[in-house]
């Protein structure tokens, strides 16, 4: 059991409930965040999967963009899929982005829903977080591609063809896939370790 850490889940739109229940199972205190004042006192924040245009618009309209950028300067943030897009500095298209991670992403890079897939991948960064270290089952839903990492960002995992699917920059973590729906909690454990450090 991980000792009590308070984690926010951005609850503007998307699968925030799935993240919240996984974090709660790992022993974290979880709070839904819809307004800037709800960031107060959090040790870390999850940006869930969902539609990045919807999340970006609501974050802009409710004054969350600057508070979220400030939060990311000192605290841990984990973004999955739309959340990873939101963290990026460039999504090759005009939409609100936090721009706190030195990654460039391409939206819907694998195609439409018929091309969505799941696959097993080896991720050295989560070694030791599950008995026997089985491969991570990664679920990709209309997923973005992390096209490139630069500056302080580094790639954490790739598909066999070399396409980057996870990246880290200090306490900021991004995955193009959805551990919150596959039930594999190792990325959330990794994130909680970052939030506590």
């Amino acid at each position: 059991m991980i000792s009590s850490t308070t984690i926010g889940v951005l609850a503007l739109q998307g699968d925030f409930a799935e993240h919240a229940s996984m974090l709660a199972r790992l022993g974290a205190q979880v709070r839904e965040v819809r307004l800037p004042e709800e960031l107060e006192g959090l040790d870390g924040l999850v940006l869930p999967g969902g539609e990045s245009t919807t999340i970006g618009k609501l974050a802009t309209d409710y004054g969350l963009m600057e508070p979220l950028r400030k939060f990311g300067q000192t605290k841990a943030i984990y973004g999955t899929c739309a959340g990873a897009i939101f963290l990026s500095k460039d999504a090759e298209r005009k939409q609100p982005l936090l721009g706190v991670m030195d990654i460039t992403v391409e939206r819907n890079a694998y195609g439409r829903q018929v091309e969505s897939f799941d696959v097993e991948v080896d991720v050295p960064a989560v070694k030791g977080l599950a008995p026997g270290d089985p491969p991570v089952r990664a679920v990709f839903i209309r997923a973005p591609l992390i096209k490139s990492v630069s500056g302080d960002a580094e790639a954490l995992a790739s598909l066999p063809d070399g396409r980057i699917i996870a990246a880290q920059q200090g306490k900021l973590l991004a995955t193009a896939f959805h551990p919150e729906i596959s039930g594999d909690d190792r990325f959330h454990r990794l994130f909680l370790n970052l939030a506590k450090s």
Partner: protein
Amino acid sequence: MEKQVATFEVKKGLAQMLKGGVIMDVVTAEHARIAENAGAAAVMALERVPADIRAHGGVARMSDPGLIEEIMNTVSIPVMAKVRIGHFVEAQILESLGVDYVDESEVLTPADEANHINKHDFKIPFVCGCRNLGEALRRVGEGAAMIRTKGEAGTGDVVEAVRHARTVLGTVRKLQTMPDEELMALAKELGAPFELVKETKELGRLPVVNFAAGGIATPADAALMMQLGVDGVFVGSGIFKSGDPARRAEAIVKATTHYNNAKILAEVSRNLGEPMVGRQVTDIPKEDLIAQRGW
């Protein structure tokens, strides 16, 4: 493990990404752009909104593939489209277009009076309507990866949406306190697959995402459905049959996110212009109710 496409988890997964969002009916690419800019999580591409289908009469069918493709090329958010109940060839056509979700919908004229589509046969995921838990679980049994309560489409009257959501969610709540030996009798009464009844009890919710639809016309309607416990909302005629669609669309998106915040709900409900005219469900002859289509 090799890469796998079209697993049930992947189909169900897209609906999970739509949660807390609004899916809007659009009939042109221009509507689709307005919906996306307003914050829609997805759009439903169709030729006529339900209010017009109701007014127009005649047989309502799958939309022109050209229109659907134009909408797919206009927006970056997921695009859904409707097929008639049981019309698996319309579904094959939509699958070949690559739409993100197919709605096997009672709003169109049913093509089969006894059977729905075997949705397991398809790579694309399906959403289906329901009025109660039995109907919901029959659709999941056929392979639906998302459920929406039906409400009464094209009316702007939320009463049926409330009835259906309360019926589904109320039965799920009742299931929680039932001893296991009563589940088979309940499955028989509901006309639902036993294994899915059991799974619903274990999960404490439907095994797939559950949105509300049919009659949602205002931000308050959307927030009402969210507070009742659905995962998100479909808005059909309510937006583009109103006086100021862009503004109302955005207000309904905000109300769906901030459904528990009355102050924000008051703010977004201000100066929205004329709502859709609407038609009271109790004024509609029973045989003309759309929600009764589906078996």
